[in-house]
């Protein structure tokens, strides 16, 4: 892979995955290029299914987007290359497309309007859509999340932004009791098509309270779906899928990933919320990860490949529910699992994932599942200490070596 890529190798260049012919089966050229374009739901293995949507452009469709230089030869970019942008711009693009498409979509959060969003995800949207649709709220997470949920009950599709995911702890009652449960307790009468998003994770010396990972707290709320994006491509796709979903979705972004650059397709695409992403197929060990740890893993993979290992890396993306199909197939192939995550060890995503794999795929395991998580400490301010709270590539390499003995 071209070493000049700003992001680590996101998707492998394995030809099987991205054979352009595969996804055109069943769709004639005429159906692709018609007066009405089509929108495709993308699977990580290249399968697509589509239905017609007037908004999108026609043309060839790419299942994976790799940030390529002009001279990089990958068979994936057989067609039009797309456009390059940063992750926060990809989020904004997804958001803007959905707001154009459906007048019920609105945004609310602190400083999302006039200020443009603290991470610029909503920049320019308030001027375009007005102050009611891109609402600047006061610092009142509990009640503006509640307001979003109440609006969702009537049929609006609000996107509530927590300036930092950690602030949403103030809205925990609303998210857990109202957002997650109203569909059930009302016997199916009310749907809550809300998206709750925001940056979380350990940043650069932001201090303990601004380095929260909330996936572990929200994961047992019934009725909620959780996804974590990690690349501009999946950020845009997941944002669009989350907005279109009738269920409440919590979209976890990461503070340090907002400036990732990638080339994404021009065509409209939506990703599947419940699906995991195959980052790098392999044979020896399955490494399950999400969000920022994906990059630490891929960095470790470089070392591991040099040492002769062939790890399979899966970005699980969907934190609730887990994509046990993809994960299961991988476990059946490699028989060894390493989970690398950024949330705390205790009660984290890794522990649930471990339990799920043991419950379902025990017979396929050759070794105990290893789980590398952040330490159970408040994130310290000092840089060196902070570095050691999260999992580093060296630890991943050591863990794989231990696992593959």
């Amino acid at each position, binding site marked *: 892979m071209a070493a000049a890529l700003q992001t680590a190798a996101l998707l492998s260049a394995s030809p099987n995955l991205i054979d352009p012919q595969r996804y055109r089966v069943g769709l004639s050229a005429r159906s692709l290029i018609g007066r009405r374009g089509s929108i495709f*739901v993308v*699977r990580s293995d290249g399968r697509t*299914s589509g*239905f017609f949507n007037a908004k999108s452009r026609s043309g060839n469709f790419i299942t994976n987007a790799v940030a390529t230089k002009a001279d990089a030869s990958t068979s994936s970019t057989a067609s039009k290359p797309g456009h390059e942008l940063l992750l926060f711009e990809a989020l904004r693009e997804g958001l803007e497309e959905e707001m154009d498409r459906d007048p019920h979509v*609105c945004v609310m959060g602190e400083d999302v309007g006039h200020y443009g969003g603290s991470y610029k995800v909503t920049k320019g949207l308030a001027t375009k859509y007005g102050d*009611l*649709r891109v*609402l600047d*709220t*006061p610092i*009142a997470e*509990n*009640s*503006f*999340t*509640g*307001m*979003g*949920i*109440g*609006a*969702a*009950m*009537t*049929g*609006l599709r609000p996107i509530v932004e927590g300036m930092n995911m950690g602030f949403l702890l103030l809205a925990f*009652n*609303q998210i857990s*009791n*109202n957002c997650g449960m*109203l*569909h*059930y*307790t*009302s*016997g*199916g*009468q*009310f*749907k809550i*098509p809300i998206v709750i998003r925001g940056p979380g994770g350990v940043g650069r010396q932001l201090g303990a309270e601004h380095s929260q990972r909330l996936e572990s707290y929200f994961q047992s709320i*019934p*009725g909620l*779906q959780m996804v974590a994006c990690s690349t501009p491509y999946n950020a845009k796709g997941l944002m669009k*899928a989350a907005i*279109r*979903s*009738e*269920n409440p979705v919590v979209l976890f972004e990461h503070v340090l990933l907002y400036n990732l650059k990638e080339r994404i397709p021009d065509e409209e695409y*939506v990703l*599947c*919320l*419940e*699906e995991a992403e195959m980052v790098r197929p392999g044979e020896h060990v399955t490494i399950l990860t999400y969000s920022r740890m994906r990059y630490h893993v891929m960095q470790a993979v470089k070392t591991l490949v040099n040492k002769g290992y062939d790890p399979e890396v899966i970005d699980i993306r969907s934190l609730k529910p887990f994509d*046990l*199909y993809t994960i*299961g197939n991988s476990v059946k192939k490699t028989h060894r699992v390493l989970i690398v995550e950024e949330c705390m060890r205790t009660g984290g995503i890794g522990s649930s994932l471990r339990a799920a794999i043991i419950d*379902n*795929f025990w017979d396929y395991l050759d070794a105990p599942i290893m789980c590398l998580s952040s330490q159970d400490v408040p994130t310290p301010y000092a840089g060196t200490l902070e570095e050691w709270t999260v999992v580093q590539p060296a630890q991943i390499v050591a863990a794989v070596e231990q696992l593959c003995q």
Partner: protein
Amino acid sequence: MAVLARSSSPSSLSKLLRPHSVSSLRSFSSSAADDQRVLTIETSVPFTGHRIEPPSRAVDTTPAEILSFFRDMAVMRRMEIAADSLYKAKLIRGFCHLYDGQEAVAVGMEAAITKRDGIITSYRDHCTFLGRGGTLLQAFAELMGRRDGCAKGKGGSMHFYRKEASYYGGHGIVGAQIPLGCGVAFAQKYSKDGSVTFALYGDGAANQGQLFEALNMAALLDLPAILVCENNHYGMGTAEWRAAKSPAYYKRGDYVPGLKVDGMDVLAVKQACIFAKEYALANGPIILEMDTYRYHGHSMSDPGSTYRTRDEISGVRQERDPIERVRKLILSHELASASELKDIEKEVRKEVDDAVAQAKECPVPDPSELFSNVYVKGFGAETFGPDRKEVRSVLP
């Protein structure tokens, strides 16, 4: 607008009534119940305003409306008493918060608004559900956890909802429904449909921070939200003066105007709600404090006598009971005779007993219902469980 209070002489009215004897209650109802002439009746207590000129004490109503008030409140009262017996018979479990004594708030509010206006309240929601058009069967079935309940038996006493009547529940965590109500008002403003939302809460929940947060936002955005404090003077076992430094709940909005209303007088409630709706559509949020009282304890597990005296309860029942007040009104304006009202009550009692019997026959939810309605059928991508055999959702 003020119209002559009395109709023609009493005797002519009684002539209308006399041929329609007790036996044919229906025909009686059709004569006075169709009577649409306007009566103007003064509320017994004036309104008190905070930062706003209170509305007039003279309320316009019709005999038909007054009779419907009587009937609706009688149904609610009967329902709550029946729920009391069902709870003691262990057919209703868990928490059961009864509304008897407060019926005037639910009935008066309904008289002022349409089904497109939203109502949201916390767990003392059975009567509000009836007011929104819910049936007795749905209510009892939900209380007993049966399939035909308004939330399919999965919500329970504290989670009554009726989407088609814009009734947003039914919430267990008090105070949390206020931001939800402001959210509904936000959506109403967003879609510009000229409706308002009433977010009800009690004197206990009036101390929740999210109320003030939501009020601030509602005022900033001029949302058509009306916050109604049903002040029954006790937050479970804590009297209002022990929980709130300032129990003048209608004033606690500070920059938001408020109105204090006699919540045991259904006509006062109706007037206040009409006034509030008009205000909210034009100007933004307003707070209504309904001075009301609950006869039962906080819930069925609370006797209601450890923190207040029986004399107090019976005193309120004698002097301020909402149904008695309407009865006196009907009798003094000769809209019906005492025996006719008794017959209405008998009929109501039978209706409630029938509904209870029917609800007892209802089946419990199917075990598969445990897993239904957790998620709405997904966005539409094909997703499966781990063995690819069970389809979870399919692309449209």
